């Protein structure tokens, strides 16, 4: 009888210990390993980049996806500027998560290859609209006849 009680007690202690070990193993396994990186990136401004787009001459749309990434904490306004400085598109201020699947241009563009066309991203803080860092993404726009 005494022996049974001892065995039962040892097993009970083993169960409790296993539970505790399991708890700490489970907890330890998901502690973010890169919390510093997450903090750094929390304030970053993510901007999408392109290398080439094309459209048809006489039309005023480019079938391209332009968006403000959801994880951004700011507004983004994108403008497309031809190499001669002519602005042909302005998105308006996009909230995080906003996506445009077609870019409606303000004018038609003559046929040709426009190397070093710019997408200019202007970024603004949500709320006070404070100006943030900016970026120019250089790409090639081909306007097909």
């Amino acid at each position, binding site marked *: 009888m005494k022996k049974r009680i001892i*065995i039962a007690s040892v*097993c009970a202690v*083993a*169960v409790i210990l*296993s*539970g*505790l*070990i*399991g*708890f700490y*193993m*489970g*907890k330890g*396994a*998901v*502690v*973010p390993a890169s919390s510093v990186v997450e903090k*750094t*990136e929390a*304030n*970053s*401004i*993510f*901007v*999408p*980049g*392109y*290398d*080439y*787009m*094309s459209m048809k001459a006489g039309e005023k749309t*480019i*079938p*391209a*996806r332009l968006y403000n*990434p959801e994880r951004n904490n700011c507004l983004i306004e994108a403008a497309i500027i031809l190499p001669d400085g002519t602005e042909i598109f302005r998105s308006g201020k996009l909230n995080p998560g906003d996506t445009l*699947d*077609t870019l409606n241009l303000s004018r038609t563009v003559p046929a040709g290859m426009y190397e070093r066309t710019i997408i200019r991203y202007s*970024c603004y803080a949500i709320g006070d609209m404070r*100006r*943030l*860092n*900016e*970026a*120019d*993404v*250089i*790409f090639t726009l081909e306007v097909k006849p």
Partner: protein
Amino acid sequence: MKKRSICLTLIAAVVMCSMLSTTAFAWDDTGMTAQFKYIKVAPAPELDPSYKPKYEVALPPPTSFSGGYGDVTLRMAYNALEENEQLVVKVNPSSYDERGNFFLKSEEGNKLYAIIGRYGTDPEKVEMANSGDENFVVAVFDNSGMDAIRYGTIRVIALGRDAAPPGEYTGYLHLTIELTQKD
């Protein structure tokens, strides 16, 4: 025989408890409390745009510091570059004033001039930009990952801060990002 089967049952229970507790508590205390997921697949968009981004770059937030210098690191967040391509990030000349100098401004409107530098993995090896340098490369990426393969961190070093009124100064960077072919 009976004792042996009780013993085996208990051992099995110990192993089960250990595994179950690992699963049951496998979530941390950082706010991730969702334990059940329901995923509804979105219907395909009617018009699939022809041109999608090839990369995403994480621009740093505006540079603010109260000490002698501030560092900001550039990273990629999405990378679909080809093997022969590289992404070059430069400081756009519009980051400088009319004399070609980088500066920071306080809320009171006071100006603090600064020099822009760059480095890769070793913060001791900072290379400084010349005034108005239009081709000052601050990061180069290829298809190998999200971190720059050359440079990657921008250091902004304040000049004459002893003479500047106290306050928090902020500088804005305008960067140019270009996809090029590797040499």
